[in-house]
């Protein structure tokens, strides 16, 4: 068992708010910003990512006693890749349209730093159940922020949500902000979200970058 007992409540709070992967640690935004111009794509992406994070953390934790330290990175990568391949094949088989829309970004979940970060920082040294929870709630914390960004981008940029026109935003009263569905919109929205949450939290910002 782990040396320090870990409170489940802390795990939930850390993943969702106090140590949120996106606005606290600014990790893993690479592979996912590109899909946030449509809410539906984002939901699928987030579900895949949360599944992969949770399952990889669980597996890494289960195998932690038998993994030599020197090659643990490689083992973790292979475990993550294993789950990503499962998702990729499932999407191709049951939802080919979504598989095409997400393009290479499903595969890029492998290099998403959140998963590696959680495996390395938590799952490698804790029992399976807390690791599963940690992975799950880190993934959910990430998903909440991404869905928020996708919500703003789709609503302002196309006047729709999940492909359905919204009142007011879908009507002629609203001029679509095309820039929101283009790449710069993602940068601006993410920056504003990070700014908002960091000032709400009130804690000192940790330098730049990671």
């Amino acid at each position, binding site marked *: 068992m782990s040396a320090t007992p870990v409170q489940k409540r802390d795990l939930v709070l850390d993943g969702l708010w106090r140590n949120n992967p996106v606005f606290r640690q*600014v*990790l*893993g*935004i*690479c*592979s*996912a*910003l*590109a899909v946030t111009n449509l809410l539906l794509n984002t939901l699928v992406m987030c579900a895949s990512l949360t599944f992969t994070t949770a399952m990889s953390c669980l597996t890494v934790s289960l195998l932690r006693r038998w993994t030599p330290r020197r090659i643990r990175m*490689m083992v973790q*990568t*292979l475990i993550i*890749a*294993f789950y*990503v*391949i499962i998702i*990729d*094949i499932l999407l191709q088989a049951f939802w080919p349209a979504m598989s095409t829309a997400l*393009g*290479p970004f499903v*595969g*890029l979940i*492998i*290099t*998403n*730093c959140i998963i*590696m970060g959680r495996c390395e920082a938590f799952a490698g040294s804790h029992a399976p159940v807390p690791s599963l929870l940690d992975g799950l709630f880190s993934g959910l914390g990430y998903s909440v922020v991404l869905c928020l960004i996708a919500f703003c981008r789709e609503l302002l940029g196309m006047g729709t949500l999940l492909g359905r026109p919204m009142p007011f935003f879908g009507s002629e009263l609203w001029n679509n902000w095309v*820039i929101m569905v*283009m*790449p*710069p*919109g*993602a*940068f*601006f929205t*993410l*920056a*504003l979200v*990070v*700014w*908002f*949450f*960091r*000032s709400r939290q009130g804690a*000192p*910002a*940790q*330098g*730049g*970058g*990671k």
Partner: protein
Amino acid sequence: MTLGSEFAHALVVCFAAIFTGNILLTTFLGMCPFLAVSREVRTALGLGAAVAFVMTCTCALNWLAYRYVLVPLGIEFFRFILFIIIIAAFVQFVEMVIERVSMPLYQSLGIFLPLITVNCAILGASLFMVIRGYSFLATVGYGLGSGLGWMLAIVSMAGIRRKLATNRIPEGLQGPAITMIIAGIMALAFIGFTGVLAGR
């Protein structure tokens, strides 16, 4: 296609990857090192050069592996694992070679090399070249162009951030947030290139 026209196509793909389809500013790949290592021009230049070199070579290697190993065997779904292994092995190999050949280069580049293995832009470029079905020459052009484009973005960002260091920025906006806003403005500028090149 004749060799000449294929070469021309590769050139167009290369320029398109630098400007109209900049891998960082249009597909957001490689954001983590971009945010973390863009504080000094010199280090940004070193990392950018290393990324450009590794990206060109791994794209070519991955193309060969995909075309001549995975496709004949019918196991294309295995590409994620194979690409990652090839990238990791190549980076390790380059690190060993540089350590033997040139110690100064190793010391200036050494710290960036392990970082590159987990740079999603490298894997991303390989996955894009599979999806777009490039020929071998076009793949080399694409890898080189993406690498140079990434380098261009991180070096200009480092230059801008140096100017920012003396400015007062709201507390919550410091660090990553302001970098992303600048990146957004840079992405806006790069949109201006859209339509200049139709090479995809």
